[in-house]
């Protein structure tokens, strides 16, 4: 009885975050390789700056956490975050695209540091 109870508690403890993650689509970094063409023109160039609407460095996204990348793209989609180019791009992405790109860039830390 106690053991059963323990297992239930354990399942609840570990099950909650697992099911929360399942709500978001699983990303496939390999599938993203044909989708990054729209990203690399800005995010793939060291020291690249946005020109509009204000000038600052385009963020480094390789090595960033997958959750954060997905949250950022979703925030651009919903308008919680505003940037003309990024809103346009994010609205063109499916949930699967977002998951794949998040997986790709979070795992892409192996490149040259610059």
């Amino acid at each position, binding site marked *: 009885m106690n053991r059963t109870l323990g297992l239930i508690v354990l399942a609840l403890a570990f099950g909650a975050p697992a099911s929360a993650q399942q709500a978001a689509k699983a990303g496939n970094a390999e599938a993203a390789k044909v989708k990054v063409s729209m990203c690399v023109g800005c995010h793939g*160039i060291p020291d690249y700056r946005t020109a509009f609407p204000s000038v*600052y*460095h*385009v963020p*480094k996204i390789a090595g*960033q956490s997958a*959750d*954060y990348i997905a949250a950022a793209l979703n925030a651009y989609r919903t308008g919680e*975050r505003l940037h003309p180019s990024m809103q346009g791009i994010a609205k063109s992405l499916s949930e699967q695209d977002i998951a794949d790109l998040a997986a790709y860039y979070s795992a892409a830390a192996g*490149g040259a540091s610059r």
Partner: protein
Amino acid sequence: MMMRIGVTVLALGLAAHAHAWDADKGAEKAKQVCAACHGETGTEAKVPGAAILAGQYRDYLYHSLLDYKTGKRKNAIMSGQAQALSDADMRNLAAYYARQSGPLKVVR
């Protein structure tokens, strides 16, 4: 003439002061308000969805904080956190995190 030069020097001095990016002061602030979610040097996402900050571009970090503070960018946690930061705090924090080494990179 002398007065004009004086005013120019003063203006330059104020401008330089307004744009000070003091990473050491940023380190103090970071320990107090950012470390719990971003890790002491900004290399971690201690809560889901938190960004890795270490080694990110300084002007981007500052811009992000500014957007959170002005409401241009919305986030349940960061919108509130940014309200408590002065412009100098935001510049200092940006300078601190940009100076740290971490996993962020530019790749094609």
